[in-house]
């Protein structure tokens, strides 16, 4: 970071190829570039090890390659996450949760590479993902239960006179789901990267004593990698819980 540059400069969108389609500016930006890299990486990471994977015909075929083990780990992680929160019916929504988790996870992780760009640090991106989840689970609830879906806002076993107070609260909490889901991810990414940049600025400003913030940002980078995973996990598990709510209401 050059002196005097804002720590927020890292979040600036820079167009790489200007594209104008029907009057809309859909330029290929650094954000789109890292989405491309993330998508390509996920597809290669999970597809390539299984392209050559032999059928298991003998005991010696039981030893998977390293890449295969890594891919299976991701697969089984989301599989058990969905099985634990939604149950057997959750299998249908496996590709959605898997895509969301991997897209956010690798978006976050690639954002940790110096000079890269974190597309999950943009509220418009996280809000779009969260709105997508929100609209999906709401439509799912109406498809599964029809008008009965509104009973979701009525907590069972509550005295009647409490309902006028609690139904609006339930509705507000339901409607705030996409906001909390998107802001949580966006704010974590924003805060982490900003903090890293601020302390990185101290390294050059403090001269010899810059070693102290340097040690700090090394530790902080580790924490940020943890948060990158954790936020993807939180996004995925909340999506699972919302799907579960839509399927089973209460």
């Amino acid at each position: 970071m050059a002196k005097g540059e804002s720590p927020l400069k890292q979040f600036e969108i820079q167009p790489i190829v200007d594209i104008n389609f029907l009057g809309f500016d859909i330029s290929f930006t650094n954000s789109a570039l890292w989405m491309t890299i993330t998508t390509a990486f996920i597809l290669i990471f999970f597809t390539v090890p299984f392209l050559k994977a032999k059928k298991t015909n003998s005991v010696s075929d039981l030893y998977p390659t390293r890449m295969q083990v890594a891919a299976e780990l991701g697969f089984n992680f989301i599989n058990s996450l969905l099985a634990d929160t939604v149950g057997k019916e959750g299998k249908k929504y496996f590709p959605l949760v898997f895509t969301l988790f991997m897209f956010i996870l690798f978006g976050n992780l690639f954002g940790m590479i110096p000079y890269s760009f974190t597309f999950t640090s943009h509220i418009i991106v996280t809000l779009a993902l969260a709105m997508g989840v929100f609209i999906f689970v709401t439509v799912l609830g109406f498809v599964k239960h029809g008008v009965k879906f509104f009973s979701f806002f009525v907590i069972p076993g509550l005295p009647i006179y409490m309902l006028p107070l609690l139904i609006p609260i339930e509705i507000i909490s339901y409607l705030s789901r996409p906001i909390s889901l998107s802001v949580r991810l966006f704010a974590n990414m924003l805060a982490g990267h900003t903090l890293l940049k601020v302390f990185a600025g101290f390294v050059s400003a403090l001269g010899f004593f810059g070693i102290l913030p340097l040690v700090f940002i090394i530790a902080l980078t580790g924490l940020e990698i943890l948060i990158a995973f954790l936020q993807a996990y939180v996004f995925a598990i909340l999506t699972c819980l919302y799907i579960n709510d839509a399927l089973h209401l209460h």
Partner: protein
Amino acid sequence: MPQLEQVEFFISQLFWLGVFFVVLFSVLTYITLPKIRAFLNQRDDFVKSHISKQDDLIKKAESIIENYETKLNEAKNEASKLISDAKDKALQDSESLIKSTEEKIQREIKITEERVAKEKDLAISELKDQLKDSATNFISKVTKIEKGNINI
């Protein structure tokens, strides 16, 4: 904050997000995930079939051991029976042999005794006759009586 200031790039970000998310979702849903799932299922089936095969083999081995043991026991019983039979028979044979030998000896003793008695009788009667003869002779010589008239 560029996130809220660069509004002109909102459409671009949403567009590319949509494109890549849809691409990723479709490829994962229709190619990658079914491939992984099929592979894992196939491997699980293989492992399961191997485990059941192994169970079968263990059962087979156990039945073979059981079979072997019963046969061994049968053979042992038969062998001990044969041995005891043979012992009994040998004992019986020797007893009967002893018995018959004793009987034979007794019989021979009896026969010998009878013969001895008979010969004794014969000897005595012969002695008697000889004595009679010599007495007759003596008397006839002394008395001059015809031998035929003398009756002792």
